[in-house]
């Protein structure tokens, strides 16, 4: 005899499992195709019957096809993340602790840009980079994103939640403003900065639109841009394309496994915007 309660919990498991299969199958398929031998046409039965090879990955790393974009994504993502940590902290501290009219105005601009649809700057940013001679350079990939309104917003809220007494004590001891910020406030803000760093890195790592329109040479392609442009090339097949995609997804998956709590709290704290 199955009791009513355990029957309903069985139903819950069955439904949850079916949905789980739907949600992760496409990613499993990507990994599966990435280890099939290249050149052969893929058919549906291959999920189980086809062989296993790492040759596609070896091919990608042997050429410039993926190493350069991987390097670019890491550099750009790293610099932008670092920039956001330092600059969000500075701006947020100013907005949280200095009650000035200017800061009130600045906070309004932060909220405005937080909500503004970014498509509005596609054309003018392209023109700006062109006229400034920064088009198709690392600067174009980095400069506009060094500090973003979500970061300022998150860190400002966090700073406002910590008492000011420690900063005051340090000031009495003769510490200057920057000293207070980087030796007292920054360590206290670590949880908020960690959440911010993950969000910024993920957004940047996955970003396609702006990196693709602000650069044109092969040397400056980030991973998503390179992958999107390889697609449709006669020279590349699904096996290699999926191996490249797997390389783009793996760092995100690994970070997710280790920092699930931080990622989730970042989302529930404000909701991310690309």
């Amino acid at each position, binding site marked *: 005899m199955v009791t009513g309660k355990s029957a309903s*919990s069985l139903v*819950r*498991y069955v439904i*949850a499992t079916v*949905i*789980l299969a739907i*949600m992760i199958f*496409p990613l499993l*398929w*990507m990994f599966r195709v990435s280890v099939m031998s290249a050149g052969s046409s893929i*058919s*549906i039965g291959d999920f189980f019957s086809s062989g296993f090879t790492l040759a596609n990955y070896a091919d990608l790393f042997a050429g410039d096809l993926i190493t350069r974009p991987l390097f670019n994504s890491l550099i750009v993502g790293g610099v932008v993340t670092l920039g956001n940590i330092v*600059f969000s902290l*500075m*701006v947020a*501290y*100013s907005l949280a602790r*200095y009650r*000035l009219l*200017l800061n009130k105005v*600045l906070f309004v*601009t932060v909220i405005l840009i937080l*909500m*503004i*649809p970014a*498509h*509005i*700057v*596609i*054309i*003018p940013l*392209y*023109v*700006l980079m062109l006229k400034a001679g920064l088009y198709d350079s690392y600067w174009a990939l980095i*400069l*506009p994103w060094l*500090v973003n309104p979500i970061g*300022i917003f998150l860190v400002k809220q966090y700073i406002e939640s910590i008492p000011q007494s420690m900063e005051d004590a340090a000031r009495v001891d003769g510490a200057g*403003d920057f000293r207070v*910020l980087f030796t007292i406030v920054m360590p206290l803000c670590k949880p908020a900065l960690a959440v911010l760093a993950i969000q910024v890195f993920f957004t940047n790592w*996955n970003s*396609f*639109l702006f990196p693709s329109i602000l650069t044109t040479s092969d040397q400056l392609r980030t*991973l*998503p841009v390179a*992958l*999107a442009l390889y*697609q449709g090339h006669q020279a590349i097949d699904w096996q290699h*394309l*999926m191996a490249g*995609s797997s390389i*783009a*997804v793996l760092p*995100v998956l690994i970070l*997710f496994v280790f920092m699930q709590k931080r990622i*989730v709290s970042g*989302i*529930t704290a404000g909701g991310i*915007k*690309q």
Partner: protein
Amino acid sequence: MKSSKATALVLSLPWVLTFGVFWLFPILYSLVIGFTDYTLLGRGFNWTGLENFRLLFADPAFISALKNTFIFVGGTIPITTTVALLLALLVNRQFKGRGLFRAGYFVPSITSMVVVALIFTNLYQRGGYIAMLASMAGFTPPQHGFLFDSGSALYSIMAMDVWMAVGYYMLIFLAGLKAIPDELYEAAEIAGAGKIRQFFSITLPMLRPVALFIVVINTIKSFQVMVEIFVMTKGKFDTSTSVYFIYETGLTTQFQFGYASAAAYVLFVIIALFSIVQFVLLRRRQPIW
């Protein structure tokens, strides 16, 4: 306090510069050139007044892009929101393995859009997995694959977007569910209200602000759909969207900066109007359902 004012300004400088150079200036510049015939190749530009806007609304490519954008927004948001809520309810109650299910549902939303679009281009192709599933369910899949057919391409991309987004909004719903005080349910229990009654009288009304927040941010995001179109169809098979149109007219072949900027402002006004309406609903005291 002069020195503290100076310090505040120095600390704010990164945002003052970023805001001024990469946001305010481009936004205003775009507004100005929207009233000109500025292109990359032309020499200088002429004021054309409202001509760009008149041309836009007579341009079948723009009208069709706008239509597809509305289909995309109107089709995905109700489904995404409903499915996200159902998923949240499914994994809200404590049960063994709950964390695994939550993580699995969420994973697609942290994957790169380009990668997701590539995977689904493969799954949607002729003889691919989804064609097989469709045949098994008794449907005839499009002859050349789902993305090479005007009747199915846009809807296939929309389905992918729902798949990708539901886990993200599920997490926000879960946070909303957690914020509902247990006392409400206990009181309802004592008053003799059943589970279904509790859902409609407590859970749903209490989730209203969260649901509207989700709809607001998803609306702003969905109106700007572009990357998946670029990767999967390049706007062919009746899948071009507003932002894809902006990209195509402004940054390919003819580089019509002025015309594309005008289109960007039309979309901007549409998004702003939708957001304002949603904010008004968000602030209303009485529930809308």
